[in-house]
Structures are given as structure tokens and as C-alpha cells.
């Protein structure tokens, strides 16, 4: 039986699936360090020397038994000639994209619709219209655009 098929069979077990898909943080970090160290072709003791610790502490991080401190992770990243991307809470990441979308695009769209209905006309707002000269805008008689800008 190949591994893909075996994984599918194992995931049919509900309790196993729950634990397997939880992606325990210490395991993910262990995986990351193993990958990085093998890519750089370092030994555990050499890495420990660069980070100023003992070899067993690197082995402990790699086993996924303990969660290492961010300070040590930063040192490891620096020892490999790189830097650490700061971790973030998942829900913050999602809501951030939502708010930026709703605040800018929807706000302008609402303004446009309310003013346009007042005039009884519909216009499509292009980006060029926003950088127009005010005097020219008055001449063109598009008052709804000025209100949308304010």
C-alpha cells in the first residue's frame, strides 16, 4: 500500500483525523528546523555552536517534544544567514483583508449610488475622475464626485 492510500485510510478514523489535522505548533517548528538544517548541510553540534547552546537542546527542539522560545528561533535563523518571519494569530490575518476591502471600495460604491440616485443618473467612477481640477469639475457639472471625495 502506498503512503497516500494509507494516509487516506488512517484519516477515516475520526479521532486520528482530529489530532493529525491539528498541526501541533511544536511539530511544525521541528519540521521547519530539520528542513532548514538539512538544506544548509549543518550538523546539530555545529548549529548549537553558532547559536551558543548545547547540541542536546537542538535535538530536543527537532524532536518536537518542546516548544522553543522565539529568541532561540531568531538566533537559529540568524545563524543560517536569514531572518525570522514573525508569527501571527490566524483570525487577525483574515479580518484585516476584510476591513480594507469593505472600508475603501464599499464606502466609495455606497457614496456613488446614493448620490447618483439623488440625481437620477448613473455614472461609472474611473480613477481619472478623482484627480481632476476642481474648476474643471464644476464646469463638467458632476457634483456627486466632489461629495464622494470629502
Amino acid at each position, binding site marked *: 500500500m502506498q*503512503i497516500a492510500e494509507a494516509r487516506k485510510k488512517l484519516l477515516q478514523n475520526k479521532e*486520528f483525523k482530529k489530532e493529525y489535522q491539528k498541526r501541533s505548533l511544536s511539530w511544525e517548528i521541528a519540521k521547519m528546523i530539520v528542513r532548514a538544517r538539512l538544506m544548509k548541510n549543518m550538523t546539530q553540534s555545529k548549529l548549537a555552536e553558532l547559536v551558543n547552546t548545547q547540541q542536546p537542546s537542538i535535538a530536543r527542539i527537532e524532536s518536537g517534544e518542546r516548544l522553543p522560545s522565539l529568541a532561540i528561533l531568531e538566533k537559529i535563523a540568524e545563524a543560517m544567514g536569514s531572518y525570522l518571519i514573525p508569527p501571527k494569530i490566524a483570525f487577525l490575518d483574515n479580518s484585516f483583508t476584510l476591513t480594507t476591502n469593505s472600508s475603501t471600495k464599499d464606502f466609495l460604491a455606497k457614496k456613488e449610488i446614493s448620490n447618483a440616485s439623488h440625481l437620477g443618473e448613473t455614472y461609472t467612477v474611473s480613477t481619472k475622475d478623482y484627480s481632476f481640477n476642481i474648476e474643471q469639475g464644476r464646469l463638467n457639472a458632476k457634483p456627486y464626485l466632489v461629495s464622494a471625495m470629502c
Partner: protein
Amino acid sequence: MKINYWETNRYQSPVMDFILAQPPKAGAKIQWVIDLFEEQGLALMKTKFLKSLKGCSLYELKVTFQGFFYRILLIIQSSEAWLLSAFKKKSNNTPVKEIKIALAYANTLSLSLC
């Protein structure tokens, strides 16, 4: 590394049965190490997850979880790995009994051993 789970005539894999018999979290960790082995291959010899046993082309995957030690015996031939048997470690040496079981399984594969 291409990984296969060895199966009996009745399509039962001893390693898979062992994983399901453990507590779910321990089973998940065992599968996690197997996934890592699939990704890294023999380079995993440089970590403490993979170790070669003396003699035949027999290897063992070492999994630690909450003070318990699990072992999976496997055989590697021409960049293909066969997971043969698994057990919970209790003594310092790999028990000869377990090695014999694994070799008996490996003999059914018609591979050239040793």
C-alpha cells in the same frame, strides 16, 4: 522517498494497525515522522529520527512522544522504502524477536536482502 506499507495476504498492514492502536495523538506523531521521512529521504539519517541497524539493509524510524518511544522497522531498496513492523520500545537494544518478524515480512517481498 517512495514509501510503501507492507501488507499481509489479507491486505492488513501491521504498521497501520499499530498506529491506530495507539492513543490518537501518539498515532498522529508517528504518521508525522513518516511524512517527514517521505519528504527528506535518507538525509533524515542526520537527525535522530532514522537509524540503520547492523547487518542487513534494515532501518528503524524513531518516534518519541510524551516519554514513550516507538520504533518502526523498515527496509530500503532502490530508493523505495517498505514499512514492515512497529513496536513500543521497552529495552535498550532493538529486540531480536522484532527484527526476526520484520525480516520474515521482508522475505515475502522477493527483494535481494543482505
